């Protein structure tokens, strides 16, 4: 048996004021994000396993503070936002520790595109995300290699359409908005994501 990280604030909790009440389980990340945070295309929830703790922290805080996931057309973000709204700094730390216990499993590839064209398109991205899409904490850029490709497609589209990265406090999001303008249309998006896929083969 593998012990799961014990999470004091996030495990089965009961309300002190109503002791007879059905206890609830606050550890629900895996309902959407899949077993061991592997990501679930069925509900469009991305892989968390292997995600950098600093990136996870920033995004959970962004969601909680309404910096991400408030644009009505950001369908998946809008679903995530209320989950984060109730988090405290402490529970965010607990989640990060829990997620840290999951093994990194590169996501299955579901998108095909022109990898050579994608390589060229990826060059500007490499400055921050790294030549192997391994990410760069100093620049605040998460790893892309191994992330669910359908998720990356959605996020690029969201940046382009202004569903993500428009909040004045979303500094990194604003950068991404500028960078994604180099991608013209669905083909470009698929090609660059196909290239990122090829880096985790």
């Amino acid at each position: 048996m593998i012990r799961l990280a014990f999470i004091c604030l996030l495990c089965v909790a009961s309300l002190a004021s109503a002791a007879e009440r059905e206890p609830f389980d606050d550890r629900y990340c895996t309902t959407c994000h899949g077993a061991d945070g592997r990501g679930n295309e069925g509900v469009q929830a991305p892989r968390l396993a292997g995600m950098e703790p600093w990136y996870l922290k920033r995004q959970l805080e962004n969601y909680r503070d309404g910096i991400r996931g408030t644009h009505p057309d950001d369908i998946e973000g809008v679903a995530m936002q209320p989950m984060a709204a109730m988090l405290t700094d402490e529970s965010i730390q607990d989640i990060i520790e829990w997620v840290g216990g999951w093994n990194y499993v590169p996501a299955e590839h579901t998108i095909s595109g022109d990898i050579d064209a994608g390589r060229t398109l990826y060059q500007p991205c490499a400055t921050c995300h790294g030549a192997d899409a391994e990410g760069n904490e100093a620049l605040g850029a998460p790893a892309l290699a191994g992330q669910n490709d359908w998720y990356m497609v959605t996020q690029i589209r969201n940046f382009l359409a202004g569903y993500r990265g428009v909040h004045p406090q979303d500094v990194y999001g604003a950068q991404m908005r500028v960078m994604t303008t180099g991608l013209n249309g669905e083909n470009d998006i698929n090609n660059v994501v196909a290239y990122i896929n090829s880096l985790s083969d």
Partner: protein
Amino acid sequence: MPVSRREFLNLLAAAGGAGAVVKAGAALGIMPADAAASTLDLAAGNGRSAVILGGGISGLATAYELGKAGWDCTVLEASHRCGGRIFTVRHGTLIDELGNRQYCEFDDEPHMYFNAGAARIPNTHRTLLSYCKELGVELEIFINENKTCWVQDDALLGGKPVRNIEYTTHMRGFVAELMAKAMHESDMDEPFTEAEAETLLGMIRSFGDLSEDNVYRGSFNAGFASGGFLNEGVQKDIIAFRDLLKTPFAMTLLRTNEGETGPILLQARGGMDRITEGFLRQVGDRVSYRAMVASIQVRDDGVEVAYDQDGARRQIRADYCFNCIPTHLVTGLDHNFPAHYVRALKFVLRGEAYKAAFQAKERFWEKQDIYGGISWMNNRSQQIWYPVAGIHQQKGVILAAYDYGGGMYHTRMTQQERVEAHLADGEKVHRDYRNLVEKPVTVGWHRMNHMLGCSARWRRSFREGWTGETEDHYRTLQAPVNGRHYLIGDQVSMRSAWMESALLSAHWAMNDLDRRLRNAPA
């Protein structure tokens, strides 16, 4: 001389095309047989084991049937409760909606409950009904259409609520008048004999309650403006045809009582979860709660399942596996399913239903002659359901919103916004609604823990229906993986969103396995 069968069919063929012949042919055939529920005759389990993933009705029925045949069954249920989309909310119930957890505060009374999931049992859902009988689940009649209920649309008569019976009576009257006119002015009566044409016209007249001259001049069917018992009844004013056509209800109201939601509908007395409890009385000791499946590995000699419970990862191995976890959650598990199976799992989309309810401080609808049934509103809350349970008691629980097809509109709102939306919508039908109701509960199925959806959506569009591709995926998911893992539930049926389909799917899987085991060389 009586018309011969052939002559009769020819007549129908002339009037209705070939389709009519086929149907009438069946109707004139042998007398109908008694309705038969799907039943199982499983071979003895001989110590075989099954692990059942999910305590939905299909999983529980599988545990029950296999248990009767001597199998060793274990049910793993992720939630604190069984029943899945059979979910009755009453005093103290935890509504485990992600991001919007609630505890129901209704008064603790037997009639104060709300069926947030399944609520209606059509009389033709024989398998479900026969389980209710077998398991001792008491049933009562559910009232779906009650013509005394209201219809409200801002575009109709300045938003004034109108009784369903008024609306539909006038609509039938005007439509009948048109039909009667058309029969006279065109050759529409051509294919009929004089006698047939006379019958048809008579039918049209009575359908619309037309006067002798085939004109609609109002009808007592719409109710009395005054009088009716000791004094002569006074007819209500007619609502102009033009006005009736101002609301899209023109297209829907006359068929809410048809098809699967037509009479007779039933419900479990005291709440639909009495059905779940009926199964649990038989197999409750086989269920492991808060046991969330993480991995399914199908082997040649059985199935290995890993699940999380009490903060630990646990393993179970069984000879066979029956799985009613929704497809869109199965895709997030660790599994070794073949690629075409995974493609089929991903093809199925998730539904979005939404329901909400209020406790009413008094049964204000009964003061308006309403006992059960649905008021229809042309706004986002759409429906108000009045309870059959607790007639003439002080309080009751009413459904305040039901969006079956969409649901995301309210799901995306906060609890406060949802409640305000239903109050604002409902007070267009019931004056003082806001002060008469309290203790709201809302259920966005798209966000319910361990469900994240309503019912499987197979069809890409209603017009397109079931395409060949859809059906291929469906057959893929119906077939066992390596002969060991069966996906079950209404998701593996051509008619999702019914408990009957969930049961029939489980029966199909058990029958398929049973047949294979019987045919297997010893």
